[in-house]
């Protein structure tokens, strides 16, 4: 996917430059773009290192487990097909908590463990289960307390207030997560209704 997008961006730019008779801009852009990327990286290192350090302390302090325990009652209702003591549910809550704390590297392993636990009980291993789709929605909506790379970018580009968007990012994440969950619920209902009607026809 990204291969095609990138190819189209570069070719589109070169063709447009040729068409408007400013082909020399292409070579200049390559140099200036590369310079910008390097400057950006230098500024990113400092802020990202700080957040990675804090994330490590948070993990060692067991904050992930505390947050996960607090979140179980909120997340439980969205996974009606899982049992209370399900191993998948435990990993789902840890995955969501890690995302919330901005521990992206910790979130993925928990998410994959949850997927594997759900797949073990999947009667149709080619097709995603209801709970799998809900977990995916939680992850793609990406709700987080600390958008560390954005803070780093804002600081790097000379913002007066690099953390200005932290609260609204969390709010927008809440909106995205709720909308995604509602969409997921409606899609699920639709499918079950269609499945029921299908059965009715056949019998």
């Amino acid at each position, binding site marked *: *996917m990204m291969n095609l*997008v990138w190819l189209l*961006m*570069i070719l589109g*730019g070169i063709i*447009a*430059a040729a068409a*408007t008779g400013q082909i020399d801009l*292409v070579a200049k*852009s390559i140099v200036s*773009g590369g310079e*910008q*990327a*390097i400057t950006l990286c230098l500024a*990113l*290192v400092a802020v990202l*290192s*700080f957040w*990675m*350090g*804090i*994330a*490590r*302390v*948070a993990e060692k*302090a*067991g*904050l992930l487990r505390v947050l996960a325990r607090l979140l179980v009652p909120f997340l439980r209702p969205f996974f009606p097909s899982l049992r209370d003591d399900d191993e998948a549910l435990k990993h789902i809550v840890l995955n969501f908590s890690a995302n919330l704390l901005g521990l992206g590297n910790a979130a993925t392993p928990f998410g*994959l463990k949850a997927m*594997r636990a759900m*797949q073990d009980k999947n009667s149709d*291993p*080619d*097709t995603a289960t209801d709970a*799998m789709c809900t977990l995916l929605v939680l992850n*793609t*909506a990406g709700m*987080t*307390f*600390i958008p560390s790379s*954005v803070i780093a*970018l*804002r600081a790097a580009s*000379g*913002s*007066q*207030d690099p*953390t*200005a*968007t*932290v609260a*609204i*990012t969390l709010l*927008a*994440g809440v*909106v*995205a997560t709720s909308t*995604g969950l509602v*969409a*997921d619920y409606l899609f699920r209902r639709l499918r079950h209704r269609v499945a029921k009607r299908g059965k009715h026809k056949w019998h």
Partner: protein
Amino acid sequence: MALISILSSWLIPLFVATVLLAGWLRGVAVFDEFIEGSKEGLKVTITLLPYLVSMIIAIEILSASGALDALTNLLAPLLAWVNWPKEILPLALLRPMSNSGSLAVTADILRRFGPDSYVGLVASTMQGSTDTTLFIITVYFGAVGIKKIRHALWAGLIADLAAMLASLVFCRLLVV
């Protein structure tokens, strides 16, 4: 909105203080662990570098040649209809596809329009409040060999769109 900016400026210090204090109370060697963790920062930045170089150069060529302007102007009437700043369009298109790619686009928007402008704030919020839907679907379903993903992609993209619209609305509250 004074409340939102007060909340934003308190959220980070409180978070840092809570983490460090909780770590200390639980007997974590806070400084040593911090150092250990921050070594990751360098690694992450180095992994990001090729993505930033490739995307920023592509955007630079696109915008210097006028192709980006042509594309956004083409879609401008549609965007104006929902009150969507057209400068954000490249980010909205790339966000669900690539995390590092859209991070590069965000960097470019912040540099061009300023991080504290309305457009800069929207770009920051958008980048932070959604995740890379297509990548997550590929990794998660790929890891367990699911072929029929049902509605996961659509629900994910609907969540992305909601985050983007929410970013527009909330940032408007922030600047007035």
